[in-house]
């Protein structure tokens, strides 16, 4: 990997990191467990690998933005996540920020 590619990769990951959080919070208005969330995001064009998504869910939950519960589904215990009240409030603000940034970038470019 060249310096330029490495630089691009770092910047891409940095850019993506914040977007992933927004996407996950947005998708979790509806309850999901890890794998169905991953599929739902992929279905909408956002592929996230397991080692990024599943730990991210834990972090967002630890921050109080998600709630979770273990429940049995199809004879298997799964941990279901959903947006918490705090998460909903944060999501609204983040979306406003996202739209403003998006608009600004559009204006700049």
């Amino acid at each position, binding site marked *: *990997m*060249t*310096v330029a*590619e*490495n630089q691009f990769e770092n910047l891409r990951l940095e850019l993506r990191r914040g977007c992933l959080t927004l996407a996950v919070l947005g998708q979790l208005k509806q309850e999901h*467990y*890890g*794998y*169905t969330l*991953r*599929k739902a995001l992929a279905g909408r064009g956002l592929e996230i*690998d*397991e*080692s*990024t998504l*599943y*730990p991210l869910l*834990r972090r967002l939950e630890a921050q109080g933005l998600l709630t979770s519960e273990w429940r049995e589904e199809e004879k*298997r*215990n*799964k*941990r279901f996540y959903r947006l918490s009240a705090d998460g909903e409030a944060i999501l609204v603000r983040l979306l406003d920020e996202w739209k403003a940034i998006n608009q600004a970038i559009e204006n700049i470019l």
Partner: protein
Amino acid sequence: MELLDRYLEAVRKQLPWERQDDIIAELRANLEAQLEDRQQEAGHALTDEEARVWVGQLAAPRTMAARYRPQQSLIGPTLFPTYWLVARMVSLWVFIVAVIVNATRLFTEPWSAAAVPGAIFNVGFVVLLNAAGITAVFAAIEYAGLHYPERFPQLAELVGKWDLNDLPKIESVKRGRRRTFGLAVTDVIIHALLLVWVLLLPRFPVLILGPGLFAVNASPYTYAPILVDFYWMIVALNVVQLVWKLVDLRTGAWMGERRLQHFAIKLMGMVPLVIVLRAPGHLWILLKDPAADFAKYGTQLAQINEAIYLGLRMVLAIVVITFVLEVAKWCLESYKQGVVRVH
């Protein structure tokens, strides 16, 4: 699927103990659901080769586990588990060598009161210096791989590579996890009782000598002061062991194999042996009244001390040999299981 079980165990090993079960249960549910989807798509249960391809596409176990941990800033989360493994392995060996070197010095150089604390300080300093060196090397690798990938492509590739053959065997995982919390608590209680028993010995020697105490009291012999030092070193060793076990209970380390603890205690156990072996004049037993009894018991006394000397040397030799064999066996096992692997 055995390969998935092995993958999950490899992840589990590198997770904080208090979150292991919860994280692994969730990860298992997610991966099994993913596996079912794969099998539905394929229309059949995955073959061994397909399973290897699928598991091989997952993140390296150490990377997966590292992302559940707080981020390390000096050394990135991908490199950190390797750094931690190397630091522990190398530190253990440096510790062993430093202890042997310092113990030999204690044994061969003229005795002084400051020699033991000096040796302990020296061992600590050497281990610390070594750990600092390893940290600096890994920080440099991290920096070089991140900032100069074209100049150091191997370092850049270091991150994220893994091999299915590195996954632990399920049997070995089960063997390491047989210990229960109840057993660990019982171990601590028994150790505490043993310590109490040892502490009561000076006041109640009958606890160790039994009826033989009357014979000892009636004999013309007594013990040399070096045996008192030896006694207190044994007490100290037991206190260290007990505290270590209590800390293990608190931190959850009791679940692991505790090899490091086992080796460290064995090494520490050699120190009192070495010191007692260096008793001035090789005298462990003395006469209560040398002036009156030497003519009668002098030869017998010399024979007793000679026998003790030989016995102590044999014990020390056995302890050292078994220790070296155990460490060698452990290294071999670790190597076979692919635990000692640095990419």
